[in-house]
């Protein structure tokens, strides 16, 4: 197996290098056969990556511990189901996975590229092939997953226990694929730029792949958050860890990009800017992969750690230089046809949206590099974690939510103050009502109230637009409401898909505001038969179960959850408050009003080989709040056998996860092809840009 794998990887190096060279030569010399050959070589690279991947999987299944990577990342007792996880559990395998993903997506994108893009295609293929060649070459020389070891161990050392979770099938591969996939829109933009035929056609295909990668990254991050919340026992879902940040940054820039290309598609503006955006997204994705490979920053995600960080950083610097040079070279021809007319226009709101998204990106990048900067400048190590990012990014994100509300209300080009006022009326009234309602309910956290008002505003802006559209159709076309809504959405899919994604983002915002501002927490150790009370819940520790396995010692706490009538416990609540406690413990004696509402079984597992604890929380969830229980430890001391519980109430947490399906739905609708609309969008572009293309193509021919 190891030989098949190694040969496949070297073949990958050869064919992708060949693809790059022939495509460029073919385009320069005007020999179509060479370009065709180069394109097919990319398909061969996909085949090579596939063969290598299958070889590695077979090695895992057959427990071929002569291969170092297999021995280090699996063992005989590991469930076969986790073979795929072990595949990308560490540096070499994840690099092979990335290569496979890029080869697959490159082949698909080349296959799907429209004929009218053919002049630029050789350069696009060449760029994809160069990146592929880089990955293959790194695999072949510095990180070969098929490296053998002279002494074959009887058993492997096993997979990292934190990775033993179904979430591992989705979160890491999605993030890795999303990051490397940004190469594709970048290659289309750069190919168009180099060829000189960059009218606006590259935008169509780059848009599709940018949205796909953006969707993949978005869902990948959301799944990661869900995983951290349910398994890692952090109680949190997003900790602004460097690895999270480097996935977030390209996603933010892609968000800016997919908004800003709407302006190019519709109005022929922002041409330079869109190229700049996709270049930034690509370079940040490279930064992400470089930091993932280990090196300069400290992170909880240090799974794929290696010495390759610097190599990837150099490749990033090269890409940056490349992007910069071709941009400067083609800069004079990237003029916009039109200019922004008024600040009260859709175009201007996109400009503000781009500005805010890039501000969040830059601040996040600054937070990621500041520890390195501090170390270099004065030799003192510092940490930059959640409290910093929450404080500096929070206000900017809030502004983004507000712009998200105003933007869709503004028409293209310009509007009158009167018409804007008319549109603003409903959302503004609704958000004022929200403020009044929250204050009346006694909620006084300023930022939370403002944030909820902003969310209401943005949501109402979308609903208002849907309602007006549906009403117009019902009135004029006599359609039933449901049909009218369906036709409204499918009549302009990119736009309404986008609005659905807005709703998903607002749902995340609701979850974030709830959990950030209103979480309650109480830690205590209780014995069997004792209870812990926090707010409306009484948590009774029933008993402990345990299970001793070869690789781990697992324990579960069985917990009954009761909803209580607080007035029955007023005495205890008063004492707790006097002592500065959020909750209290007591010997269980059911009181009137106690109602059993659920049972939880959070677990605590100790992995001997790794000297590592992995907890799984018990969560009782509803749309209003989550009751979240982590067994910190099982204690044996003079007070007897107890469990140390960290109990928290996380308001509105469910909305974070509800956002996932909505996000997917919106993304799918935005991507859902609409041939007639596409054609009219192309025609809408001025004849001038097509003339420019025709001229430059003729000059080349």
């Amino acid at each position, binding site marked *: 197996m190891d030989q098949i794998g190694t040969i496949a990887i070297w073949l990958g190096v050869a064919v992708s290098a060949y693809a790059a060279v022939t495509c460029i030569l073919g385009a320069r010399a005007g020999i179509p056969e060479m370009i065709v050959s180069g394109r097919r070589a990319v398909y061969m690279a996909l085949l090579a990556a596939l063969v290598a991947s299958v070889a590695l999987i077979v090695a895992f299944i057959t427990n071929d511990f002569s291969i170092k990577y297999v021995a280090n990342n699996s063992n005989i007792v590991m469930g076969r189901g986790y073979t795929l996880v072990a595949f990308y559990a560490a540096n070499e395998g994840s690099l092979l996975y990335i290569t496979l993903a890029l080869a697959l997506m490159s082949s698909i994108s080349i296959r799907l590229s429209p004929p*009218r893009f*053919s002049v630029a295609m050789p350069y696009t293929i060449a760029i994809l092939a160069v990146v592929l060649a880089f990955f293959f070459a790194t695999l072949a020389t510095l990180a070969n997953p098929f490296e053998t070891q002279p002494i074959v161990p009887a058993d492997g050392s096993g997979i990292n226990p934190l990775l033993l979770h179904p979430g591992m099938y989705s979160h890491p591969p999605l993030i890795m694929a999303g990051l490397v996939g940004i190469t594709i829109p970048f290659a289309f933009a750069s190919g168009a730029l180099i060829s000189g035929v960059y009218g606006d056609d590259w935008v169509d295909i780059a848009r599709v792949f940018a949205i796909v990668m953006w969707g993949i990254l978005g869902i990948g991050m959301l799944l990661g958050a869900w995983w951290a919340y349910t398994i890692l026992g952090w109680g949190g879902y997003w*900790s602004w860890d460097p690895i999270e940040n480097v996935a977030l940054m390209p996603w933010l820039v892609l968000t800016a990009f997919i908004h800003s290309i709407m302006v190019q598609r519709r109005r022929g503006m922002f041409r330079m800017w869109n190229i700049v955006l996709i270049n930034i997204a690509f370079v940040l994705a490279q930064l992400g992969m470089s930091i993932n490979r280990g090196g300069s920053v400290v992170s909880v995600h240090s799974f794929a750690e290696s010495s390759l960080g610097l190599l990837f950083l150099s490749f990033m610097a090269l890409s940056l230089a490349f992007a910069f040079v071709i941009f400067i070279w083609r800069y004079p021809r990237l003029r916009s046809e039109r200019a922004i007319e008024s600040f009260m226009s859709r175009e201007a709101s996109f400009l503000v949206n781009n500005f805010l998204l890039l501000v969040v990106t830059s601040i996040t990048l600054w937070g990621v590099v500041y520890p390195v900067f501090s170390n270099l400048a004065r030799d003192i190590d510092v940490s930059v974690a959640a409290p910093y990012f929450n404080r500096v990014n929070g206000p900017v994100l809030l502004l983004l939510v507000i712009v998200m509300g105003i933007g869709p209300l503004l028409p293209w080009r310009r509007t009158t103050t009167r018409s804007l006022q008319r549109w603003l009326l409903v959302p503004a009234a609704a958000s004022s009502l929200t403020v009044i309602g929250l*204050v009346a309910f006694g909620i006084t956290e300023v930022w939370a109230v403002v944030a909820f008002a902003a969310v209401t505003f943005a949501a109402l802006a979308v609903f208002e637009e849907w309602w007006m559209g549906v009403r117009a159709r019902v009135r004029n076309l006599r359609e039933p409401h449901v049909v009218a809504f369906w036709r409204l959405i499918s009549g302009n899919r990119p736009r309404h898909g986008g609005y659905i994604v807005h709703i998903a983002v607002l749902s995340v915002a609701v979850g974030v505001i709830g959990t950030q501002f209103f979480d309650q927490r109480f830690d205590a150790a209780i014995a069997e038969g004792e209870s812990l009370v926090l707010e409306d819940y009484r948590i009774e520790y029933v008993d402990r179960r345990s299970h001793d396995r070869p690789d781990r010692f697992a324990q579960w706490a069985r917990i009954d959850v009761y909803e209580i009538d607080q007035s029955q416990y007023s005495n205890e609540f008063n004492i707790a408050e006097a002592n500065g406690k959020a909750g209290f413990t007591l010997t269980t004696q059911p009181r009137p009003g106690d109602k059993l509402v659920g049972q939880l079984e959070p677990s605590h597992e100790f992995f001997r080989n790794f000297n590592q*604890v992995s907890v799984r929380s018990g969560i009782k969830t509803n749309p209003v709040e989550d009751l979240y229980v982590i067994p910190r430890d099982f204690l044996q001391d003079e007070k007897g056998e107890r469990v140390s519980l960290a109990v928290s109430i996380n308001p509105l947490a469910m909305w974070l996860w509800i956002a996932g399906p909505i996000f997917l739905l919106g993304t799918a609708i935005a991507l859902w092809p609409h041939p007639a609309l596409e054609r009219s969008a192309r025609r809408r572009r001025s004849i001038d840009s097509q003339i420019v293309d025709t001229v430059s193509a*003729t000059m080349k*021919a």
Partner: protein
Amino acid sequence: MSVILISLIAVVLASGCVREDDLTGDQRIYQLSQQLMCPVCDGQTLDQSQAQLSEDMKAVIRQKIEDGDSNQQIREYFVERYGEIVLASPDAGGFNLIAWLMPVVIFLGGALLVGNAFLNMRRRHRFNGGETHNSKSQDVESVGPQPPSDDEMDEYLERAKREIASAIGEPDRVPPVQQETQENQ
């Protein structure tokens, strides 16, 4: 309307500030455990980590709160023992002021750039005398120039290609724009 909004926000702002001494002891432990890093775990705060050391550190925090120390005193105590790296976000003072000022600089600098770009575009638009097509409709959906019909467009492009080709003296080398070419199949 805006008067109501502003006064509401003012009321909320006035009533909303939470001070340290308003918090219970447990809340302060929780707060501090989110502000301090676990020194032996990679990138986790005390609150997130499962390590014994962070349990011990939380016990120290509890003790110090009972002794009447302020949050700042407790933070300083840990900085003395573990160095600045124990703080989850650098204190805004001295060299670390840069960490906090940079976001402001980024925001203002970006705002300046965008504002400038916007004004330039506006100027260019005015200089060009605005666009000529009619825009009487304020409707969101139908603003913008009407696209030419397919026939008009094809005819126009065809003519343009012919003229360009003849201008460079090679009438039979019409470039493959908008045409299905064999090469890409």
